[in-house]
């Protein structure tokens, strides 16, 4: 998971705004420089037009040619403000940030996404397919209408397996239960979504004996490693662990890593949450 240096603040022009489902907005903008350097699993910080709030961490959904996009679920003051943006408006974003997924040579990849996590896995799916890997998307949501942009992943060439909590579409239950029932074992699991889903994914991956990379979410402030507000306990032996003295805290083998800087993608096997 190589580290970022290409991050810049970009003033971008909104090209298109689409409401994919009630309260789910897809905003694409003209950002050639950002698009050209973004790697799968990276995110950006969207600067609030009105100030007085921290920037909002959002996955980079699409990045192709002149165009990049974000997809967000309106849930609080910042996304409510971003919701007001429309084609022609300008927005400032800092990115790309964080270390993304690495597909390596995997020939069969299972991508697990839940809720807002879907916004952080499209680039990864495209990369897998481009590398000729079989790519299955295990996609979970509360209900059918929140399985946004599902067809997009099919068009890209994914096998899409859906699960809904209320059974209104696909598998009735959690997406990780669907994953646990796969017949052909994938070589690699990539996941992004709420932490209960990620914990379950880690468990299933361990049972299947498949390595998993998890993209974590936490409340961010700076998004660039400056405030240590977004940490997760990590094995001190992890290559991603920040440097910390040996034997500290009675030789504790755990250290808190910054999700925004050392992550957001971590190896499930190295998390100590």
């Amino acid at each position, binding site marked *: 998971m190589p580290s970022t240096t290409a991050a*810049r603040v970009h003033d971008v022009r909104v090209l298109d705004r689409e409401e994919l489902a009630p309260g789910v907005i897809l905003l694409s903008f003209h950002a050639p420089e950002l698009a050209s350097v973004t790697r799968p699993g990276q995110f950006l910080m969207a600067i609030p037009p009105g*100030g007085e709030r*921290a920037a909002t961490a959002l996955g980079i959904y699409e990045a192709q040619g002149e165009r990049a996009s974000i997809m967000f679920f309106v849930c609080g003051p910042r996304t409510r403000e971003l919701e007001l943006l429309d084609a022609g408006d300008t927005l400032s974003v800092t990115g790309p940030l964080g270390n993304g997924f690495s597909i390596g040579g995997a020939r069969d990849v299972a991508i697990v996404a839940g809720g807002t996590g879907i916004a952080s896995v499209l680039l990864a799916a495209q990369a897998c397919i481009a590398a000729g890997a079989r790519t299955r998307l295990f996609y979970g949501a509360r209900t059918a209408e929140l399985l946004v942009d599902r067809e997009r992943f099919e068009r890209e060439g994914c096998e899409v397996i859906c699960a809904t909590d209320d059974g209104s579409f696909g598998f009735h239950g959690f997406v990780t239960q669907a994953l646990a029932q796969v017949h052909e074992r994938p070589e690699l699991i990539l996941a992004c979504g709420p932490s209960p889903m990620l914990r379950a994914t880690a468990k299933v991956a361990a049972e299947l004996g498949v390595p998993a990379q998890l993209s974590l979410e936490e409340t961010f402030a*700076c998004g660039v490693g400056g*405030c240590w*507000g977004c940490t997760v306990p990590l094995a001190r032996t992890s290559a991603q662990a920040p440097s910390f003295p040996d034997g500290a805290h009675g030789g504790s083998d755990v250290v808190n890593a910054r999700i925004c800087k050392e992550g957001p993608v971590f190896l499930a096997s190295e998390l100590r949450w």
Partner: protein
Amino acid sequence: MVETIDLTAKLGKLELAFPTLMGSGCYGSGEEFESFVDLAQIGGVVLKSVTRQPRLGNPTPRLVQTPAGMLNAIGLQNPGIEHYLLNDVKKFASRPCKVIGSVAGFSVDDYAYVAEKLAARDEIHALEVNISCPNVASEGETFACDPKLTANVVRAVRNVTDKTVIVKLSPNVTDIAAIAREAQNAGADALAVINTVRGMAIDVNAWRPRLGNVTGGLSGPAIRPVAVLAVYEVARAVTIPIVGQGGIETVQDALEFFLAGATAISIGTANFTDPRIPVRIVEGLREYLAARGVQSLRDIIGKANVGFANANQYEGDQG
């Protein structure tokens, strides 16, 4: 004209090319922002506070957004002074701005121990003494809340270094001016006013505090009126320079602090809103002064503060 405007500031021996410091704990060591901010355009970075022993910090969540502000409870996560000296400090040499170490502790001894080791390094140009972190059990705060303890810590740090010592005060007290006087008498070269205001938020779905540490420190525009008043009152009580901070996001905000009596300002939370803010404020200050035909930022310090004790410090170094 705009180019010739003097924005330099002096805190004891520390000379700043610009009156803008980046708040401790908000800006890492500067490196984290280097790829999109020209650090040569800021006065200096106050490093994340360091303690004698390594600290894992508080459980998450460590951050909560609040109206026009945020709560944080990081809990001083840091590798401890020995490891810090070996692995981190040497990197600071490359910063194109001033680097100010921040010292935190749980006893007068701790403060003196960490301060001495940190001050001994050339990469560190000055020290800030954080006696006001609200997020480490109650001990942390009590230093800044007790005039005697404040004096003891400041004296101990003063005794181990000749470099500029900035003492960071807490707003969570009945009379901040009294604490400020103690700090000055104990040998502080400058005062940082203010640290965060204690607060908390509750998760109304889960029926528990939203921060892993239960309580946290409130920062951002929400606390600006509290910070401006604190600077205004401290500036009437002491003659040493003040680094004003608390919710500074625009040049107008910054000007409120200078006019109240601050010699320099510190920008923390605003960097989370837009990392370009510190440079914008410097440009804005130049334009503001130029438009009024004022040559030096020094000439407007305390101008909205009748009975501004602090004024006399400028006689010496005009122009």
